């Protein structure tokens, strides 16, 4: 029983971290209808900046975070200006391929400038487990989940209350009308990319610390798709709920399904779940139900 509870809690904590990455994805999709296949590479790149400044140059943590924030903002702006701005309104194939090309480009750049060996992001957090009624909890993941929820809270507030957020929602609703109402659509696209870059910094800290930073870190990006399809592509609340569900499903699959099947099913079950959702509720749990039918 204890073991089952631990599996669940572990799933929830990891799910919160998935939600964090999915958040950056949803943000960009909401604003500009662009599907970012390079979300994992964004996290990887932020992780590389952090690891390099902490390890290679021995800078203190807050300076490293500052550098990562600046670096990712510049990168996001450049990417938006040089490539993705041209993709708005183009076919899905073009948009997807542009971000896939971006992913390859970032992988190569990171390898060339930061070196390809695995680096780590040391954080001043104790690794000693805490026991709560005999249930084992790891402080790192608690902090990470906390960070994830803070981010999600901030972004939600930003979207609902702030002037920029309202403009972004207007653009998401109808680009033409927003333009007519005097909203500078291009500016707001740039803003949404910047916010996604900042979220990638948080992802880079947490995931970089958990897994170590090398080009393989970008694989966390693959986790995004089941999460966002389940939650709904354009829903922030969906990203959270989807992340948590996928986290728990994975954890339980590894705990119960693996011994029966005799192989790892953890990374495969979310995709099966996703296909079922696609069949019956393609817009996900919280997404806007305006899927175009033919």
């Amino acid at each position: 029983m204890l073991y089952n509870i631990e599996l669940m809690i572990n799933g929830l904590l990891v799910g919160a971290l998935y939600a964090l990455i999915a958040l950056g994805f949803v943000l960009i999709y909401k604003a500009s209808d662009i599907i970012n296949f390079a979300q994992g590479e964004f996290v990887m790149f932020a992780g590389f900046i952090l690891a390099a400044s902490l390890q290679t140059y021995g800078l203190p943590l807050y300076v490293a975070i500052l550098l990562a924030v600046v670096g990712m903002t510049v990168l996001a702006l450049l990417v938006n200006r040089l490539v993705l701005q041209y993709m708005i309104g183009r076919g899905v194939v073009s948009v997807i391929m542009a971000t896939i090309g971006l992913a390859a480009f970032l992988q190569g750049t990171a390898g060339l400038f930061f070196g390809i060996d695995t680096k780590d992001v040391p954080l001043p957090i104790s690794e000693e487990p805490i026991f709560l009624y005999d249930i084992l909890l790891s402080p790192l993941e608690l902090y990470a989940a906390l960070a994830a929820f803070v981010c999600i809270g901030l972004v939600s507030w930003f979207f609902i209350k702030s002037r920029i957020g309202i403009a972004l929602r207007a653009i998401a609703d109808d680009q033409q009308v927003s333009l007519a109402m005097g909203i500078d659509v291009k500016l707001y696209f740039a803003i949404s990319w910047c916010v996604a870059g900042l979220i990638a910094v948080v992802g880079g800290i947490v995931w970089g610390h958990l897994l170590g930073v090398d080009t393989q870190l970008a694989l966390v990006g693959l986790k995004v798709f089941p999460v966002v399809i389940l939650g709904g592509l354009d829903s922030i609340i969906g990203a959270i709920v989807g992340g948590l569900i996928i986290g728990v499903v994975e954890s339980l699959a590894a705990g119960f399904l693996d011994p029966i099947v005799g192989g790892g099913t953890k990374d495969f079950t979310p995709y099966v779940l996703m296909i079922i959702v696609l069949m019956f509720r393609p817009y996900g749990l919280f997404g806007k139900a305006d899927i175009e039918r033919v």
Partner: protein
Amino acid sequence: MTLLLVAGVFGTNASANEYTIGLMCDRSGVTGTIGNLICPGFHDYIRLFNKQNRLPGHTLKVMEIDHGYNVPRGVEAYERFKAAGVMTIALYGTPHTVALTPKLSEDHILGTSPGFGSAAGANGERFPYLFPAAASYWSQVASAVQFIQNNWKGSTQPKIAYIYYDNPAGREPLTIIGDLQKQLGFELQTYAVPAPGIEMRPQVLDITRKFKADWVVAHFFGQTGVALKEFSRMGHPREQMIGLVWAGGESDMKVAGWDKADGYYTVQMAHVGKDHPVNQEIVAMYKAEGKAPPEEMELSVYYNRGVSWAALHSEAIRATVESKGPNITPADVKNAMERINGYSERNFMPPFKMSPQDHEGGGYVRIFQVHDGGFRAASDWMQGYRDVVMKHVVSGE
């Protein structure tokens, strides 16, 4: 474009007293982090070999081609090696080794694949031109179990958990460890970590809190740091964990934190550390050229594997020239490779005992333990349950 191709291929043709070794590498694909350490080691040893004039009147040349873990590009690299007239080929990557094995036999060129390909490739009668030339996963897991048996003080057999990355290479040891379980009677549970293997808490929870394993055998390819962190959080003693050859690099320990990895045993196929005379000579060579010693040597687990890999190739070519004179063919080198007996480059690598049947060279490994931010030897070169392994090598599955 065609012009460039032609120029490139024919431009690399060796001069009369130069023998070329084709080295495949993956520096940009999924195993790039390892390839970027192994391949420099390979280059450095060959340079040292030439500097020390070990083969008087001749030099060796390495022609490296990166394939980014892409199979067609690996096949293209092979064709380019063949056109350049290489004496031997160092194969990198399991799918490439598998895809090129039939071609090696057709073209009579020797290929080595230490740590790649399937363990059954050690059967020299089935695959005459393929030399795994380092302990296969079968031999590694047998040695790991042997090591556990040697160090287990309990009155009953230990409970062993085998946790592996869920790919063919990860599953390969299952047959051997299953056989050993029947033979020795220990309790065994196996845990698969599926790709991309970035998170394995549920499996570790099961091992430590439900199954309560005494020993853990880990078979990972770059996920080791995460695994060690998890096991340390769950309080499993690292002194009762042993990792196979790709689960024990310095960068893994760095990710886990050296203090958290302290006590962890790793199975190694070459010397670890930079204190060995061969390492010292390479450093001296760099110093004589007015350069700093190679950075890659700091991560000596994989770097040294590249060095030992190159040493085996150069020894085979050297032995061929010694017995046949300067005009040699790749097939001659293959015969010389099969006659290597006890060569270990001053104990830098296992004493290879090749034969036309056994292309693995005996399947020796050495166990090193993580200690005080470094590695220390915890055993001599050892074989484990060779009879069980050979039974499977002969039957081919």
